[in-house]
């Protein structure tokens, strides 16, 4: 699989993400935000970090980087796009995903292990993962509080676009298990075509040797599974 990880000024999870894929045997490239060539990827990843210093609103200025036009065109032609943390924020700002990520309800930056529940296996990113499966994937953000108007929340629910919810160890999506105040405990959503996924937790921080949780591997394995089956 060919993976292109976009580096914006202020990205800081780009190398971790690149490494997570290259260790799994993929051709994993960093693509600079001013480039206009995505390098023929099978998957584009918008990594975590603080693109443009989070100025104005998180992700709002990254939308104007030249490469983002290519990412949007790639997504609109059916290409797989994964946005992690700041990448999720960027995807909402360029309207590839609905909703917004607001400041955490507790006002603090949260960096911790977090349980999330897989809500749908009907995406290339969760293919063959049992629905209800609880994954331990770290979060690290201050603006992860997912917000959307009631009408479009219902549309997300009705169209099976909520892919991950914050939960406790046993898989209960309670308000106590919600770290940041996200509506409906939402940790990740996909678009209606199901080829674009945004998630606040960092699967690349739960995949390499020597870290506490390697549950992120299940998401990468699902993507590989999808890729192998579509060839």
């Amino acid at each position, binding site marked *: 699989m060919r993976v292109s990880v976009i580096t914006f000024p202020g990205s800081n999870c780009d190398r971790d993400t690149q490494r997570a894929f290259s260790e799994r045997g993929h051709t994993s490239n960093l693509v600079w935000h001013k480039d206009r060539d995505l390098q023929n990827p099978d998957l584009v990843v918008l990594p975590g970090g603080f693109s443009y210093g989070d100025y*104005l*609103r998180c992700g*709002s200025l990254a939308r104007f980087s030249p490469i983002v036009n290519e990412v949007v065109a790639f997504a609109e032609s059916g290409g797989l796009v994964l946005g992690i943390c700041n990448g999720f924020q960027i995807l*909402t*700002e360029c309207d590839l995903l*609905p*909703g*917004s990520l*607001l*400041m*955490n*309800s*507790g*006002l603090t930056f949260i960096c911790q292990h977090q349980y999330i529940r897989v809500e749908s296996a009907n995406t290339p990113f969760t293919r063959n993962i049992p629905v209800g499966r609880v994954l331990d994937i770290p979060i690290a953000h201050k603006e992860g*509080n997912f*917000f*959307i*108007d009631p009408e479009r929340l219902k549309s997300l629910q009705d169209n099976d676009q909520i892919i991950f919810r914050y939960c406790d160890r046993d898989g209960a999506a309670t308000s106590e298990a919600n770290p940041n*105040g996200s509506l409906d405990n939402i940790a990740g959503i996909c678009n209606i075509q199901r080829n674009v996924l945004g998630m606040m937790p960092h699967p690349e921080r739960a995949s390499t040797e020597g870290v506490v949780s390697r549950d992120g591997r299940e998401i990468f394995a699902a993507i590989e599974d999808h890729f192998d089956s579509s060839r």
Partner: protein
Amino acid sequence: MLQAKIFIRLKPNVLDPQGKAVSNSLHQLGYVKVVETRVSKYIEISFDDDNEQAVEEQVQKICADLLANPNTENFTYTIEKMGTV
């Protein structure tokens, strides 16, 4: 020269945790009559242009395209001549 003074406010139905924290602090300071605080953004943009209509058209577009997130924020603005009181 004209200057746009732009307010970006969270929509009324969007929770404002910052505002809530400020309210709590004000209560601790003894301002017990404070019932709500909303934190907004204020932005000034100066234009090398004296045509108010042309500037207003640009400001409207700037706010809608970049400064405000239509999902969560409303914007209002005034346009004033610079250097006047």
